[in-house]
């Protein structure tokens, strides 16, 4: 399995973990935009979702159709164990590197 995780992908994956059961296209985009404080493009996000699904970081399931979607079904995403592991690895790596920094450059 691939384990490389891009910066934007990382953000999207984290957002999905935060949202839990309610993570689908629109809600992820909104949450992410709220946290980043700026607009993201639909294209960038959708493409990150599909790439991560291919890499096995994400699982998707089909939800209920709602009228405001023009009768189309929602696709909910959740992080796989593999995805969470990769996230943790990235986090650990960063912590290690921060602590390896000479103290003059810290804070």
């Amino acid at each position, binding site marked *: 399995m691939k384990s490389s995780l891009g910066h934007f992908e990382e953000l999207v994956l984290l957002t999905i973990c935060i949202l839990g059961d309610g993570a*689908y*296209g*629109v809600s992820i*985009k909104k949450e992410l935009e709220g946290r980043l404080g700026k607009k993201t*493009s*639909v*294209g*960038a996000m*959708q*493409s990150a979702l*599909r*790439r991560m699904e291919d890499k096995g970081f994400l699982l998707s399931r089909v939800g209920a*159709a*709602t009228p*405001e*979607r*023009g009768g*189309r*079904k*929602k*696709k909910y995403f959740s992080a796989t164990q593999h995805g969470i592991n990769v996230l943790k690895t990235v986090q650990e790596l960063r912590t290690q590197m921060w602590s390896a920094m000479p103290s003059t450059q810290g804070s």
Partner: protein
Amino acid sequence: MIKKIANVLLKVCCNPRFYDDIRGDLEEEYRQDSSSKSSIKEMRYLSAVISLLRPSLIRPLVPNNKPNLMFPSHLKTAFRNLSKHKGQSVPILFGLVAAFVTCQLLFVAAQSEYQFDGFHKKKKELYRINYDEIKRGGEHPRMLPTVGPPTASFVKNNFSEVVRASTVRHSEGRIVSYQDKVFKENDLFYVDPDFLEMFDFEFIQGTKSGALKDVNSIVLTASTAKKYFGNETGLGKIVSLDNQTLYTVKGVVEDPPKQSSLQFDFLLPFRSFKVPAGYPVTLDSWGWVSFYAFVELKKDISVEDFEKRMDALIKTNFNEERSAAIDFTLQPITEMYFGEFWNGDLPHGNKKDADMLLLLALMVLLIAGFNFASLFLSFTVGRTKEMAIRALSGAKLGALWFQVVLDAIVLAYTSMLLATGISFLFMEVFHELVGWDLLFYKSQLVVLFLYSSILAVLVGVAAGIVPAVLIVQQSVSAALKGVFLASKSGNFVRRTLVVVQFSVTTFIIGFVLLFNAQQTFMTNRNLGFNKEGVVVMETFGEELNAHYTTLRHAFQSIPGVESISLSGESLDGDNGSVPFVLEGVAEEDANPIDILGVADGWLEMMEVPLLAGRYPVRRSKYDSIHAVVINKTAVDALGTKPEAILGKKVRVGGIVTDGIVIGVTEDFHFSSLHEQVAPVAILVPRTQVDKVYLKFNTTDLKSVIGAIENNSKKIMGGGVPLAFTFLDDALNKLYKKEKQMGHLIVAFSFLAIALSVIGLYGVTLYYIQSNQKNIGIKKVVGAGNWHLFLQFFSRFYWLILIGLVLAYPMVHQFGLQWLNNFAYHIEARLFYFFAQGALFSFVLAILVVALQFLKIVALNPTKVLVDD
């Protein structure tokens, strides 16, 4: 519309695995978008869709889902091919760019006609009530866009289907003043408060609600506000109307776009409209058919059914005989512009003209497309070896095919992008040349770009398919040997094209020459009067009549002023016409005659020669009651002689009831040269005279006009508007349409020349390429250049000659038709113009062929023959 296009784009491009989900997300966001303007929402939707067009999301090009590694390589090779063969790709590009620019120009011009009044959000609910008179035989003698003043409010009060309604009264010739700024205004619209809610005229200052609630409120357009208040805010300013009523400015709106039927400078509450003094009607007169009535209907009602009931109810206000002879009909506001109900007041257009523009655009693209295909074929044929090597090294046939088509698409698309850039950069120039509306152009940019993109891809595919198929059919070994492929049907198409192009070029050049000759003829024609040094000062009629004697006196003492007189007309043909009843002739048999109201001295000033009798005399009581001067055409129409008609009693409409013919003048052009000189009666008794004619004998116009202005202000007071025009300029305006057309024709002639040169270039190029060996062998066995040239030229000259000959009937037919627009035109020696056009085209063709022949001269036989 934009959303639909975006959806199609998404459906086509998006990977079907993700399509449903992504589409749902987009839909949900679109509905949550809180922007007020649906166009902004749709644009956002489109930009979201465009942002989705990325490698990981688009539909795989090869259905088996393997990533297509060849695609980037193809694209790269396409660009490399093109830049390597600049000598060929540049002309290909140039022709297509020219065609796309023209196409876009024509498309926008056509759209600006089709979309007239289309900028109102409620365009589908807004209707105008029309007045349709029907005679027993089924004739429609009067089809008016106006109805009686009570109609709009009557319909609103009696039908729940009518949400809003507004009467609109167009008022002209009013004096508006603010401090020292005084102007005569011709576009004041009296409207009901609903008007602002129905139509979209955006407020820059003030707000829509309540802007016209008070009787004394007024709304100005941006440019009008600037005219009166400069850069100050208009709100709260008080302007005076006719020096009688004061109005407070409650709002400033954007100028109505050019595509609006309602072209106003001021909006006033209809409540403040007063019936002008002397009109025998009131605002309750249903028969005073001079008011527009607009209604906004509820959505989803049956308009036909409503129209019937409305018609029936309005008719209850008329007596039986009248109501049987009229119908009240509804017309969607978007159909007003091309519609049959017209009164000369609102802008009006001809749908056929707009259709013609689109057709022309398509034709230009078609011809340029053929050229492109023909040149592209030559271009690809030169690359057969490369293709063969690709095939040998294992490329699938499909991939080769794809490469060729992609080359064509890249070329076509690049041309389109260049063309869009050019038309964008030069839109101001186009604006000047053909009256292109900049704002409208900008609003059409997205549509323009989408359509152009689709067309560019189509052109690319169409041009790419022929060489692609040929190449795929070609056997690899033959290609490697350098055997060229030839297609008979392709040759036929190209030859036909050369013929068509050269006949069109000849036609256009002939026509340009004809056009110029007629133009020169018109500028040099003796108009029958002397317009040199004449300046017309337009002012307010009443004031002018009250102070004329004093003014005349004051003006006469200004050095440089030769003579002074008055007239009601500006020699643009906008004259009234009344019956001319000669003594002893029955009223019914009287012919209509145009009237020209002037003061004494006017005919002398304009140097209109007299055939018999005398000019009217100043301060003659007799003349001011009886004097009638007619022109020669009027005398001819009566079938008599100038001397014989002098002293005859005559009645001219209701203006001169006890007239005597005192003089007969030579004919002069009191209307444009499009029209035959009509019978005219020149009357001294004042009709509506509001123009002072001044003849100057000095070149220092500035100081003379300054002195005149000062004197007028001193005598008439500062509250009277003054506008000066040179008669020369005013007359030139009558030929504005010809001028614009002249620019268009010149532009088209350049295009036609460019296209035919490129077409011929393509054909000759193909010939040289496919006959290289033939020529090489001839050279080796000792053929001279002259011999080779003749042989080369003989293959093309007959195509050109056929083209030239075919142009003659076109020049003849269209030339005659066009010349007939003018009552006075040059002799129709059309063969002469045709011959000049033909000569030009022929020289042009020889030049192209000769230039191509240089390639043959430079051809080294050893190089082409070494292949075998």
